[in-house]
Structure formats: C-alpha cells, structure tokens
C-alpha cells in the first residue's frame, strides 16, 4: 500500500528544474499577447472592427491560407510518403531540400519565387506567353507564396507520423493482395490521420501568418493580395492602435479556429 502511494507521489512531484523553465517559457510566450490585449483601444474597438478594410483582409487571409493548405496536402502528403516509405538514392538530400523554406528568410523566398514565376522568371515568362497566366500581384500568387513557406511543416509532420506508424498493417494489406495505392488510401492514410491533421493545422497556421514571401512575391493591394499580416504591417506605419486591433483579430480568429479543429479532429491523450 505504502509502496503504491510512494510511487504515486513520486510520479506527482514535478521537479523544479523542469517547472521553473517551463513557467518562464510560458510567460515568455504569453506576455507579448498580454501586451496586445492591454494596449488595445477597447473603447473604439467595435467601430474599428467593422471597418471594411479589416474584414476584407481577414477574409482574404482565411481563404488563401485554406487554399494553400489544400495545395500543401495534395503535394505534400505524397512527398512525405515518398520520403518515409521509398528507398531511393539522394533521399537525405531531398529531405534537406524540403526543409529549405524553413531556414530561408521568407523575403528571400519571395524573391526566389519572383525569379521563377515572375514575368522575367524561369517559368513565369513561359506561363505568361503560353497560358496567359501571371502569378505576381494576384491572389493565386499569395496562395503560392504561403504554400512555399508552409509546406515543409506539413511534410515533416506527416513524414514523422508515417515513420512512427506500424508497418505491419501495410504489410498485412499487401499480403492480402492490396496494391500500393489501395494500401496507401485504405490503410496508411487512416493510420496517420492524427499526424496528418496536426500537420495540416500547423501548415494552415503558418500560411495565415505569412508575411515576407507574400509582400515580396504578391505585392500589397487591398482585396487582392493584402492579407492580415500585410494590413497589420502597413497600419503600423501610421496608426499603432489600428495595427493592434488587426493583430488581435487575427489572433482571436486563428486561435478560435485551431481550438475548434483540435477538439474535433485532434484528440490528444
């Protein structure tokens, strides 16, 4: 009896060496948010919120981040599967290349996108001449910039989930005659669904906050390419309070959506 109690107490005691830095970490993350809340101009908040510019930027942000996540899922999940399940020469190099957008300053990513998809870019000139498609300064350009920056988050999360998943289910499916595609859709995907959802949410959140690549590649025009982070940055030029309000709105909407998704799809222990 006393042995059981001891064990429980031992499990229950949190070492100070972990608790203190954990607390400091939490404070460090939460304090800037508190700063936003404290400095927000609460008295004029309702009228600022209903300014058409703010809602337009918010709608554009949510739309483009969602489209970017869809694009990342379509391209990123197969890429993650390839990295996790198929042996091929240069796999380590490919994995390193996939993470490049993580370490690249987003503004550099935006310039790089211009050099490829811009009017004088490697592909952009051809796209324009052949299909009449120009991407810079368009909403599609925003989606592209956000996808470039956010896709590594999805690929890494899904690849990790695939590696952690039990191979034997897939092998069992194969011995029962399922092809690789059927195994992928009927066994592998359901198996890694939580990891997939977590990756998609991370990807969406990153896309929603994207600034540097977007303003560089897609420019800034209200209603077309001006997402919330751009609106916040430009409001900061002249009107700090308006920038704070826009930041708060983006924060509340993103946290709200993430919390809702988390309850629904990502069930933790």
């Amino acid at each position: 009896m006393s042995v059981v109690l001891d064990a429980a107490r031992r499990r229950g005691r949190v070492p100070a060496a972990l608790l203190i830095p954990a607390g400091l970490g939490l404070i460090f993350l939460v304090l800037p948010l508190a700063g936003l809340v404290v400095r927000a101009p609460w008295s004029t908040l309702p009228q600022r919120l209903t300014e058409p510019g703010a809602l337009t930027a918010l709608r554009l942000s949510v739309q483009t981040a969602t489209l970017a996540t869809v694009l990342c899922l379509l391209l990123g999940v197969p890429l993650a599967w390839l990295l996790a399940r198929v042996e091929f020469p240069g796999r380590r190099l490919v994995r390193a290349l996939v993470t490049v957008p993580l370490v690249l300053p987003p503004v550099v990513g935006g310039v790089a996108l211009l050099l490829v998809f811009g009017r004088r870019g490697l592909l952009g000139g051809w796209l324009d001449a052949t299909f009449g498609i120009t991407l810079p300064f368009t909403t599609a350009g925003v989606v592209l910039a956000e996808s470039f920056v956010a896709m590594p988050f999805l690929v890494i999360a899904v690849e990790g989930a695939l590696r952690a998943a039990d191979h034997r289910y897939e092998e069992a499916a194969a011995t029962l005659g399922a092809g690789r595609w059927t195994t992928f859709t009927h066994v592998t995907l359901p198996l890694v669904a939580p990891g997939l959802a977590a990756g998609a949410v991370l990807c969406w959140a990153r896309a929603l906050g994207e600034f540097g690549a977007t303003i560089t590649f897609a420019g800034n025009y209200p209603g077309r390419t001006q997402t919330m982070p751009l609106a916040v940055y430009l409001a900061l030029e002249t009107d700090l309070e308006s920038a704070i309000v826009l930041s708060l709105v983006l924060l509340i909407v993103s946290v709200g959506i993430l919390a809702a998704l988390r309850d629904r799809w990502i069930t933790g222990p």
Partner: protein
Amino acid sequence: MSGRRLRTALAAVVAAAGLAVSGCAPDEAPQAAADGRVTGTVTVFAAASLTESFTRIGRDFEAANPGSTVTLNFAGSSALANQINQGAPADVFASAAPAPMTTVTEAGNADGTPSSFARNQLVIAVSRGNPKGVTGLADLTRPGVKVALCTDQVPCGAAARTALDAAGVALTPVTLEQDVKGALAKVKLGEVDAALVYRTDARAATAEVTGVEFPESARAVNDYPIVALKEAPNPAGARAFVAYVRSAPAQAVLAGAGFQAP
C-alpha cells in the same frame, strides 16, 4: 545538484539578457571629446530614399570625426517615426516628409525644431531604355502597363497620390509597396512596367531603370526634415550629425544624388 545546475543555467540566462539589454545602448560612453569632436556611436534613422546619400554622408562624418561611428537604419519614414515614438534608441531622425516628423515632434520626442535639409520630387521609373514608351502619367493607365506605387501611408505614396490627382489621372496600381525601395525593386525585377519613385532613387539605379520626368511632380515636392532626438543616447553626436547634414560637403553629396536644396 539539480538546484545548483538550475541556478547556473538561470545565471547564464540572466547574463545573456543583460548583454542583450546593454547591447541596445553603446557601452563606450558616447559624448563630445575635449576638443569638441564627436565620439561614440551616432544612430541615424533615415527615410529609405536617403539610403545612398546618407550612407556616403555617414562615412564622411566618421572621417571628419575620428572615433565616431554612424549606424544607419533605413525604412519608410512613418515606420521609423513609430519606432522612435515606441522608444527605439535613435539619435537622429531624417524623414522624407513633414508628416512623419510631426508625429515625432507631437509626441515630444524631438530635441529642438526640425529643419529642412533637402527636397525631392517624383519621376516615373521604367525599365532601362523605356521599352513601353512612357512619357507621362497618362501613359500609366494604358492597358498592359503594370504600375507599382508606394502605399498612401508613406511619403512617396502620398506624393504620388497628390501628383496623380493634380494630373487628373485615375490609376489602378498592381501593388502598393511599403516604401520607395520596394516600388523601385519591382521595376528592377521587371515585374512592373513603371513605378512612381523619387528622382534620387531612379538616379541611384540608372544601371537598371530610366527616370521619366513629368510636369505634375512639381505639385508634389517633398521637404525632408531632420532633427536630433530628445532621448538620444548620444546627444552631442546627434546635434553634430544634424549640423553636418546641413553643411556644404553633405549638401554637395545630396545635390549629387539629385536632391534639390531646401
């Protein structure tokens, strides 16, 4: 054991934080030396359009004041004004228009009254050789001509708006850039056909762009004010730099860059 290790780790964190904080203010006591020359770091927040000329003027100032270092921070004037009003440790503010300067003086952050040190006006920056044959503002509304402007919140955007209104030209740009260098970069990259930028910016980039003068720019001339800041970490350096910008050698640099005298 774990307690001691934690204390060591905490001490390291505190020391690092201390370093970061002290890094904001130059640790060599900045002040005028006995002979009146300026030493220490002079931190200058200057409008993006001053990039080339103030880089040169900063070097000349350092040469004239051995022991001094000029640190330059270039951005849109309004963003700089905001940073200063939020307590950024700057010594001097040089704005591309009176409006951002006014926000600094109204917040009580200026040391004395700002003085005008240069004037600038807009040109149409087009790709080198002017492939689209742009000769005036009206040409910018032709179909197939993509235009970048500065956003209205920054001086080059406000000036562009004034000039376009004066010309009676209704223009839909493809992008509203956050500062004049951003607008110019889009022309250099060939992503837009034209941008309204300062004459000095077009002149600094003659390898890639051509500046097309247009008459309405005379209606939107920007005055550039400069001021030493009240909270300047290096007050003597701040005043000396402001005086230097108004001196003949610095004015010659500004004129060479295409600025007009105040």
